[in-house]
């Protein structure tokens, strides 16, 4: 997870080969993985990641994010080359030496590709086609030492990395967890420098280098601590995961309550310690979390793939803008968003009303449509809403291309607080209030009768209808609930930014919210929270920067890659809802059951003979 910059997609579905005789390297696999790894690194360099990430130091002075983006490939491919798909109960047949060799070879092949790329870029100017292949790339690839010595460095380094990867695959499960835990935590702490610094000045001086990045001792401390914890508690994590999949209750409820209280207190106290930048970042995370929770109701609970979800966000934002802005073209009620006076509640009420209307307008016509048709029609609706807000036709009401500006700040007169985008801390608190509401509502809904109706509908609509579930009502409720939460997001967005322009409501927003829900875990509230934190916090939203500003250019590429990877490897998400993951893996369960039953049948046949 730490290195989610994964543009290659592992060829999943590699069938387990019958066990070969021991201590033999599987040449075909090695060559194939080396080849894929090589192409991957060449791709990473050619889209300019190496150069763009080089300025971000992770561990001063030895490692920059750029080199990490390239370096993890030989390590990973070495690991994969020597890892065997061990069939349950069979003995791993490869000897240690051949594992290390396979890993090193794979890494070496990868490095050859890189070196050839450096040679090619040095020889021809390919910038007419590949704009990023500049002489600077050669400089980085050869470490500024000329092509000859670069070959030695690259291949040597990659052989070593690949061998390390091969070695890693030999470790016991626990040790491997410890190692990967250590590595990923070093990565996380290094990229979260700005956040950690905000917490306490002590870290700045003791953990990080003056020019950015962890110091070498700092990195060692982090790695040691994280590695120890991961090693020590590896079993617990594994057990929890196993329990999750077996579908038992995971955590006793009293622990859950304690955990919840701790989290709430943390969330409340945190902004006070954090600086402007991190609060702004978290406010954006909260905004997408709010939308994610809303879409989670539509997609996760009710199973309706809405690709035009941004329409509701836009409706909320524009409703707020028209009600509050003094320069709104047609209607100027000029209310203030003050939740301790009538104005704020009127705005909130009208936003909710607009969302309900929008939800019903979008939801009703698509009720009888098949899932994929529903997706494309809602996508169309999302675009229609954006185009109408942009159009000259409706510009006398919504400002057209010039948007609606001068949206005033929210006020809390009693506390003498003005909530504006100027003060992200207060915006973050406002977002949190609404997120809390959204979490509560989602949780209540999922446990209620309607939640069960959604679950039934998701699994088999015709059966659900036959059981007497009113699917029309269930679907409309899902759309309306999702629309209301998104329109809250739109309202906060409007008072935060102080202006709304139609270009903020592109299709991209819908897609990114969908990725947040899917990566986090469809139908699972903690999952969506984690998804929003990881994705929006680190990579950033469609137009919001994340922790790593360097990602701006590659954000969408990474989002696409993550989406594909998750769908192939973990369609249930990082923190799956037990139900959903069972639904998604039903095929496998059936398959297993079938295999077992045939085996039993065979055995009985044997026995009776």
């Amino acid at each position, binding site marked *: 997870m730490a290195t989610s910059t994964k543009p290659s997609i592992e060829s999943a579905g590699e069938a387990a080969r019958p066990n070969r005789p021991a201590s033999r390297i599987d040449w075909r696999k090695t060559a194939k993985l080396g080849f894929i790894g090589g192409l991957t690194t060449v791709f990473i360099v050619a889209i300019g990641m190496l150069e763009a990430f080089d300025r971000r130091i992770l561990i001063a002075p030895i490692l920059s994010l750029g080199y990490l983006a390239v370096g993890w490939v030989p390590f990973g491919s070495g690991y994969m080359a020597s890892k065997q798909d061990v069939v349950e109960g069979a003995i791993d047949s490869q000897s240690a030496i051949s594992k290390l060799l396979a890993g090193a070879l794979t890494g070496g092949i990868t490095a050859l590709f890189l070196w050839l790329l450096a040679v090619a870029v040095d020889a021809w100017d390919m910038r007419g086609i590949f704009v990023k292949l500049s002489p600077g790339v050669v400089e980085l690839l050869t470490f500024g030492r000329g092509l000859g010595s670069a070959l030695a460095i690259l291949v040597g380094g990659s052989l070593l990395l690949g061998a390390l990867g091969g070695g890693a695959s030999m470790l016991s499960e626990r040790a491997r967890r410890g190692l990967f835990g250590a590595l990923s935590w070093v990565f996380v702490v290094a990229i979260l420098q700005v956040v950690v610094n905000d917490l306490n000045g002590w870290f700045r001086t003791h953990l990080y280098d003056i020019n950015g990045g962890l110091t070498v001792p700092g990195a060692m401390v982090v790695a040691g601590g994280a590695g120890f914890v991961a090693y020590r508690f590896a079993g617990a994590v594994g057990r929890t995961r196993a329990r999750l999949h077996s579908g038992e209750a995971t955590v006793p409820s009293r622990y859950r309550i304690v955990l919840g209280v701790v989290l709430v207190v943390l969330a409340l106290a945190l902004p006070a310690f954090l600086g402007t930048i991190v609060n702004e970042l978290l406010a954006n995370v909260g905004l997408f979390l709010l939308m994610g929770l809303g879409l989670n109701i539509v997609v996760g609970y009710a199973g309706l793939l809405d690709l035009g979800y941004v329409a509701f966000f836009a409706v909320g934002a524009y409703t707020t803008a028209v009600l509050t802005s003094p320069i709104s073209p047609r209607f100027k009620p000029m209310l203030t968003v003050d939740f301790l006076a009538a104005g704020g509640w009127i705005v909130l009420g009208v936003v909710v009303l607009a969302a309900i209307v929008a939800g019903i307008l979008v939801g009703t016509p698509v009720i009888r449509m098949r899932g994929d048709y529903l997706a494309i029609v809602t996508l169309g609706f999302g675009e229609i809403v954006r185009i109408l807000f942009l159009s000259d036709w409706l510009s006398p009401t919504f400002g057209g291309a010039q948007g609606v*500006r001068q949206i005033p700040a929210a006020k809390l007169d009693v506390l003498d607080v003005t909530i504006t985008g100027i003060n992200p801390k207060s915006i973050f608190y406002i977002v949190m209030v609404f997120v809390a509401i959204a979490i509560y509502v989602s949780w209540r809904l999922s446990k209620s009768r309607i939640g069960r109706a959604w679950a039934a509908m998701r699994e088999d609509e015709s059966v659900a209808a036959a059981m007497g579930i009113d699917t029309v009502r269930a679907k409309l409720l899902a759309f309306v609930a999702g629309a209301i939460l998104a329109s809250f997001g739109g309202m906060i967005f409007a008072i935060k930014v*102080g202006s709304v322009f139609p*270009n903020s409501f592109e299709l991209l927003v819908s897609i990114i919210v969908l990725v947040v829900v899917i990566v986090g875990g469809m139908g699972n509230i903690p999952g969506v929270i984690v998804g929003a934190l990881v994705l929006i916090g680190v990579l950033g939203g469609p137009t*919001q920067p994340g922790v790593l500003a360097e990602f701006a250019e590659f954000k969408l590429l990474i989002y696409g890659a993550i989406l594909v990877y998750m769908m192939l490897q973990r369609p249930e998400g990082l923190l799956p809802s037990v139900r959903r993951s069972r639904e998604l893996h039903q095929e496998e369960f059936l398959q297993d059951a079938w295999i077992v039953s045939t085996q039993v049948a065979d055995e009985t046949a044997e026995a009776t003979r």
Partner: protein
Amino acid sequence: MRNKRFRYLLAVLAAFALLAAACGDGTSETTAAPGDTTTTSAAPDTTAPPETTAPPETTAPPETTVPPSELGTVEVAAGEAIQIRSLQAITGDVSFLGIPNQRATELAILDYGQIQGHDVNMGQGLDDLCLNEGGQAAGQTIVADTQVVGVIGTSCSGAAVAAAPLISAAGMVMISPANTSPALTSDLQGNPGTDFNVGYYRTAHNDLFQGAAAAKFVFEELGLTTAAAIHDGDPYTNGLASAFRSAYEALGGTVSVFTAVNKGDTDMTPVLTEVAAGSPQLIFFPIFPPEGDFIVQQVGGVSGLEDVVLMAADGLLVSNFLALPESTGMYFSGPNTNFAAENASVTGVTPTDFLATYESTYGEAPSAPFWAHSYDATIMLLSAIDAVAVDNGDGSLTIDRQALRDELSATSGFAGLIGSLTCDEFGDCGSQEISVVLHEGDADATPTNVQFSAGREDLLPLITGG
């Protein structure tokens, strides 16, 4: 059961409110408060700005100026650098506009050298994404660092709408080399624009001037009385097309069709057919590539537009578009970029010198025409800092924020690459020199064949209706 839950929820919310109050956010007025006056009783905030105890102004309208003492000062310790920031559109499809601006700022800082023995640091160039959200996010990043004195940016007016209030409230100054929306400064008739903020300046022209110049050229020089205008839904192109329309109609011309394309459109036949229905003699389409490319390529195939005159604006003054054979013979309005050789910045650099340095540094020519505005904006800011910074005798500097604003507002006859810069009371400092060029097939460079130029004095009567 449900009631209990509800009470519980209320209790949580109340706790919330109390906590929020305890960590009270002081009072930060919309655009008229000194920075982020955060006091936390819980922990010393490491990034807290110097405390100022402003009396709570509960009902201040957004455009109140703050008494000078309230803006505070920036203290630069001995050996430390003076912090300024660049905020331009450096990714996405408008990056061709923002990247030259950021580079020009970098070069200007090098040219100017130290200020009273202190280096000037621009930090990492920030991205405005050409969007209000981008402007806001970057604005937050800027104001979080209370050492920042001023900002050069933004590229897009939409981003400035969100960034300027933040930067203004933090007491910083902001000089844009490329914003042209009248709303950010004034309507040139003495009324502040809706999005005017104290401490905002620009070296770019005001759209009203370009609209007026384009209209004047079409109506008076070409003698055409019917025109059509096409925008693409971008705030900039929409504003410019509207400015053109009002000036052209004020002169007595008719804009028979005022329409728009969408970003991403390729088949322009329908929109051109709509335009042809109004039988215009000229089409003014101040839009961006690639839609501009499609219009110019397809206009020949639409009946009724065989001999229509085409005119675009600075958005299409990019080498890719000029390389199209169909774009030969077109007119372009835009800021005057054929600078007189005698224009020299106070650093002694001339446009020719600058371009030579630019090409040798970055291996290409600037991709958009606002590099000179950006250079001038940076030099203007640095000179003003130089003028107001006070050396405390121990190598440290004190820069009074209000004094810096006063210094910039008083800019008059400042020598820049784009000509002489004089700021009006709403921050319009540009030379307002607009020219119309004819493209004669010079593919690689900006067309040099100037057909018409006009400046502030020529155009003001048309804008103010006087």
